[in-house]
């Protein structure tokens, strides 16, 4: 069995069609009418080829919450969505605040083989916001952690945040802040505004996000560190980040697919699938986020894939868990929200979903995208189809998707990770084949 693959006729970044030859884990040749003895041929006529997607914000839930997701099931969901690398958030049990836990998560990822799993380390011990976690040990571990985050919780103590921003510089790390002022959001259930007032749900005001971002960009400027802001959700946050960038502050920002497409009016149903943190905001915020992504204020799209078991969503709003799954649908939602609406070209999608998130996470191999000599990480995407999302299309363990029974454009047809296929003809390649392919490589 040869490891070589020839992809025939894919539109590279949505532009001209080329053949791509993959050999020994790298892109060996690009051009027309490429052939190679014994290579597997993938007919990609009409499909868009994008560099392998990199998610900077994924909850894989293992260790500790395996009823929601495992590294393996989350990796499969990621591959099905066209991803070749994910950053696994630290809010597991035990928390990923030691070298032991991050190495365990990284090895589980390697063993599964569907994507590169890059563990995120906690900023503070146990996500408690009291003492710095062993950032240096995690950075120097086999997992080589570069992104640190207490995501799910905000590093709200200003002094601790300052120290964290300073300390990670020693390891070329970055703090990814979940910006949520805790006192302003006690018991918060949805965006605070007209709709929360009517529905009688405790409000999560925009200012609780914007105030923390404003503080943190000023802290980053003061100590000369880079800072990353998770899941921007408000127009005001876009303004603050735009201002910070204009001052030359080293801030990067992400937006989720769901904040680019959905707004708070959906909460009127009290359907807990729409319960997420930060909450769905106003239609004006959605517009501002799209514009911010288009003009580069927002650097990347990250899924905040947050699986939960059915019983945590099949209940009254206040009791339901925050979060939605998003790996499988990310590219389709991005197409619907910002490509089909004219905000982004496919080259921009490659930047915001692959090159820049890899750069923020210091993940090598994504600098050139799809180019001869680059590691073979790419996805083949049919942007011409439209379909209703069925639960069967979700490949992780949980099905808490807000898009079920909605019509979405596009479909991931193939994913190549490190030179081998993880998705072919729109179906996941089986676990054993992927594990073996991954093993041969490593």
């Amino acid at each position, binding site marked *: 069995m040869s490891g070589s693959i020839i992809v025939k006729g894919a539109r590279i970044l949505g532009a001209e069609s080329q053949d791509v030859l993959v050999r020994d884990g790298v892109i060996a040749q690009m051009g027309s009418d490429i052939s190679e003895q014994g290579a597997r041929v993938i007919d990609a006529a009409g499909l868009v080829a994008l560099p392998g997607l990199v998610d900077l914000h994924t909850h894989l839930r293992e260790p500790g919450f395996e009823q929601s997701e495992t590294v393996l099931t989350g990796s499969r969901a990621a591959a099905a969505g066209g991803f070749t690398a994910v950053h696994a958030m630290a809010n597991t049990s035990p928390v990923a605040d030691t070298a032991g836990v991050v190495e365990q998560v990284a090895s589980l990822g390697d063993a599964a083989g569907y994507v590169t799993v890059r563990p995120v380390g906690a900023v503070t011990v146990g996500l408690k916001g009291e003492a710095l976690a062993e950032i240096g040990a995690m950075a120097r571990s086999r997992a080589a952690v570069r992104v640190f985050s207490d995501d799910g919780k905000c590093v709200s103590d200003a002094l601790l945040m300052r120290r964290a921003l300073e300390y990670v510089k020693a390891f070329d790390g970055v703090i990814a802040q979940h910006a949520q002022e805790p006192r302003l959001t006690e018991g918060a259930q949805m965006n605070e505004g007209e709709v929360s007032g009517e529905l*009688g749900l405790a409000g999560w005001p925009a200012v609780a996000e914007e105030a923390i971002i404003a503080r943190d960009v000023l802290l980053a400027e003061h100590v000369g560190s880079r800072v990353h802001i998770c899941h921007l959700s408000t127009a005001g946050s876009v303004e603050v980040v735009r201002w910070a960038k204009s001052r030359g502050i080293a801030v990067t920002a992400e937006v989720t697919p769901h904040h680019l497409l959905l707004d708070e009016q959906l909460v009127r149903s*009290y359907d807990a699938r729409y319960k997420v943190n930060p909450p769905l905001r106003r239609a004006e915020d959605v517009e501002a986020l799209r514009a911010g992504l288009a003009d580069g204020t927002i650097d990347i799209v990250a899924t905040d894939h947050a699986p939960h078991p059915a019983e945590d969503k099949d*209940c*009254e709003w*206040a009791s339901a868990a925050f979060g939605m799954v998003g790996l499988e649908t990310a590219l389709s939602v991005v197409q619907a929200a910002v490509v089909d609406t004219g905000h982004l070209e496919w080259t921009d999608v490659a930047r915001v979903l692959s090159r820049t998130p890899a750069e923020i996470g210091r993940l090598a191999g994504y600098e050139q995208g799809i180019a001869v000599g680059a590691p073979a990480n790419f996805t083949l995407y049919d942007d011409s189809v439209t379909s209703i999302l069925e639960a069967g299309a979700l490949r992780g363990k949980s099905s808490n998707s807000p898009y079920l029974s909605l019509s979405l454009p596009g479909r991931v047809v193939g994913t190549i990770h490190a030179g081998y296929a993880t998705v072919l003809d729109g179906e996941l390649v089986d676990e054993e084949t992927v594990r073996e392919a991954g093993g041969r490589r490593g």
Partner: protein
Amino acid sequence: MRHLLSTRDLTRDDAVAILDVAEDMADVSTREIKKLPALRGKTVVNLFFEDSTRTRISFEAAAKRLSADVINFAAKGSSVSKGESLKDTAQTLAAIGADAVVVRHGASGAPQVLATSGWIDAGVVNAGDGTHEHPTQALLDAFTIRRRFFGTDARGRDLAGLSVVIVGDVIHSRVARSNAWLLTTLGASVRLVAPPTLLPVGVNTWPVTVDYSLDDSLAKPADVVMMLRVQGERMNAAFFPNAREYSRLWGLDDARLAGLGEGTIVMHPGPMNRGLEISSGAADSARSTVLEQVSNGVSVRMAVLYLLLSGEREDLA
């Protein structure tokens, strides 16, 4: 009427029709035999996830006067466990064969989830959900106002031309929300009076006017002054400095009572904090409708259950 989840989606004609049926029910209550056979064979479940003896006995009396079978189901969880889930409870009630479920829940939207989940077929009546709505309370308030101002001439009428002042903890009050929607739908003008901390963001989009000063608001003509209960737990959460200041600025004390116009009535959904939002003088005065509200509550709930469960249930839908 398939369910009664909120007053926000009631039309004027729906609301007037409910109030008119409630008038018929009130007539029954004055008879020697206070019972109608209308809902014989129907099962009404009072599903209370939150204690409220007043509301529960009101619904229970209403269902019994219509000859329905009544099951009281207190599903309140302990402080340790979450209690039985809404879904499991609903499926249990479906298996029992409940025709209507009267649900009180601490979570806003729980009755709507129950009605739209597909877990159970029964008609759902919202008996108060979190800080969202309490539609039968607003209906009984509207009924009480209509009777006080129009007496035997009330049937068929709405509340056009009347002005209502609602005072207090609007942000946390399901009663205030349900009344704001219903009374304005019925043509009344509504003024909300509260400290800014107790008004929801976005109240400027409601069909009401807002005053921070009770005295300024009471200086304008008012047919109805409705005082809301102030919950003890607000005291320690910086909504206002202390009970004394609240009472001084937003309480209906004897001096403010004495200054009310001749025909102005005083309402309170109960239970009252005497001396805090309302003085005993105000609560016990001839202007006070507090006890009428309780008895009218039974008539209104009879009307709602009747419209939900009798053959006419489709007509109002």
